[in-house]
């Protein structure tokens, strides 16, 4: 891991010179932020606080787009093979991607909190410490998802198709765009199989629900971290340096295995959990509180 520091610095420098990054990691998250806070929440601080969880989730979940695209480009252009004749290892390469992404995304996250505080006058952020721990776990686990996507695709087109297929359910069925309470019962059941749901709901709970504790975040945090470790480990195993090397068949099976943790968790939560109820209660409090606060102003 000796080479990890210099690789991380390179990745940060390169990403900052990339206009695509600027669009996806800066313009898009803030566009979402103002859409939710200004339009959906009508600048009502209480509602902005409700939407902060979904907004921040979207910001950090986008990580997998950039990471998978960068890694596949590096492989396709024969850049990785130049690193392969040096003592750099697959672990160095992947860990530096994840950490560089983390460092690049944190300023956006912090700015979104600051905008919420000073532009939209949110004064209470619930359990802010827990929120940050969840955001960190979410950033790392969705970055690791990007690494897995890169390891099972051969070309940029394939990568973009897979990314689209992942992105749509992750944002529409997790509560990140439409609140979970809005979704039909079937979709709510499906949502519990998605890692995004645990991030969105965990964040919303820690920021919005009164008396949210660190213990409440144990399932979200534990599952995301476990998933991140699993996907990272698999990506290292499946790492390919050469542009012409194709995905081995066992890779697709192994990658399917990364879905198992949330499959099991989904079954458990569907039988014993209260996530949809908790989400609905929060949403209802929003509508009632909303009616109270507007005339008081």
């Amino acid at each position, binding site marked *: 891991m*000796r*080479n990890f*520091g*210099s*690789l991380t610095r*390179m990745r940060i*420098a*390169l990403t900052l*010179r*990339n206009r695509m990054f600027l669009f996806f990691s800066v313009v898009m998250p803030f566009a979402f932020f103002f859409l939710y806070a200004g339009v959906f929440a009508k600048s009502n601080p209480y509602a902005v606080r409700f939407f902060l969880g979904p907004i921040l989730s979207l910001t950090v979940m986008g990580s997998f787009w950039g990471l998978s695209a960068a890694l596949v480009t*590096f492989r396709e*252009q*024969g*850049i990785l*093979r*130049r690193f*392969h*004749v*040096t*003592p*750099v*290892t697959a672990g160095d390469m992947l860990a530096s991607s994840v950490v560089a992404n983390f460092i690049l995304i944190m300023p956006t996250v912090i700015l979104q909190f600051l905008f919420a505080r000073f532009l939209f006058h949110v004064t209470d952020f619930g359990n802010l410490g827990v929120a940050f721990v969840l955001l960190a776990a979410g950033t790392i686990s969705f970055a690791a998802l990007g690494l897995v996507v890169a390891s099972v695709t051969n070309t940029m087109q394939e990568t973009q198709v897979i990314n689209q297929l992942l992105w749509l359910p992750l944002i529409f069925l997790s509560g990140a765009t439409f609140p979970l309470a809005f979704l039909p019962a079937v979709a709510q059941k499906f949502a519990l199989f998605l890692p995004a749901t645990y991030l969105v709901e965990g964040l919303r709970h820690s920021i919005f629900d009164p008396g949210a504790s660190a213990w409440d975040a144990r399932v979200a945090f534990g599952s995301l971290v476990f998933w991140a470790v699993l996907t990272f480990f698999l990506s290292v195993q499946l790492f390919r*340096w*050469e*542009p012409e090397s194709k995905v081995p068949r066992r890779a697709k099976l192994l990658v399917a295995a990364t879905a198992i943790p949330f499959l099991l968790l989904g079954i458990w939560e569907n039988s014993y959990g209260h996530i949809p109820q908790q989400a609905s209660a929060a949403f209802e409090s929003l509508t009632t509180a909303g009616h109270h606060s507007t005339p008081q102003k």
Partner: protein
Amino acid sequence: MANPVLEVENLVKSYGDVRAVRGVSFSVCEGEVFGLLGPNGAGKTSTVEILEGLRTADSGRVSVCGFDPAVSPEELKHEIGAALQSTSLPDKLRVMEALKLFGSFYRHHRRRNPEDLLRRFGLEEKRNAFYSQLSGGQKQRLALAMALVNDPKVLFFDEPTSGLDPQVRREIYDIIEELRRENKTIVLTTHYIEEAERLCDRVAIIDHGQVIALGSPRELKAHSGGATRIEVRLAKPEANGDLKTLEGVADAREVDGAYVIHSHRPPQAIVAMVKHLEARGNELVSLEIATPSLEDVFIELTGRRLRD
């Protein structure tokens, strides 16, 4: 052999049904510039990439600086430097950043000063240029500079001048000759005769995954008898055998529609040939005379030309 730093024995590598390397053996001494000469697809790059630890061999024994690339790739990679054939750097990486970044992967006491490398490879003015802004020649010079960041014991240059214009090619030759004077061990692959003859102490000629001849360029050419090559194109086809029997002709064969004649007495051979053709109502379309080169060795051994 004095002090082999690199030994290859019976190397075999297949890709699916394609047998790229079929039992290649050679060894390289310290301070030697060793060339792998052969046409595209002969197995040169596969061989070198196994030595660099980029690919694993199906069978055979390999030792580079005392390490087996398949067993201890990381230790090996500290000892070698390489300019790969099809490689690239990120478009938005600056020249100086690339040298510093790649230097950082090696142990401290081995690192070369990137400023010295910039100067030596004539890249000072380009230090802050993005990789994408460099010309082909500049990219290649940077690739060679990057191969030296760890002051390696063995250098691998895979087709270092492929696709470059003649002037840039000569620049690269000068750089390699300078490294040779510094007593660097270099393994070089090429399909340019001139490159192998000019730069290499010893050359292994490779064809279809096998070493078909090995020795210094001088030894190899002596092997082919040191005959001058006369290449002619004729208006009508001619039987090889007839040309072979002419005065002054040592050997004649047809290669890609032309006739390649080897002769120790070129003037006599040409006169005899012109007379012979006139008598047959045939005609010379073109005639070319070349001093003996490794190309002749290759034609003699394979019946084919080395260039594409």
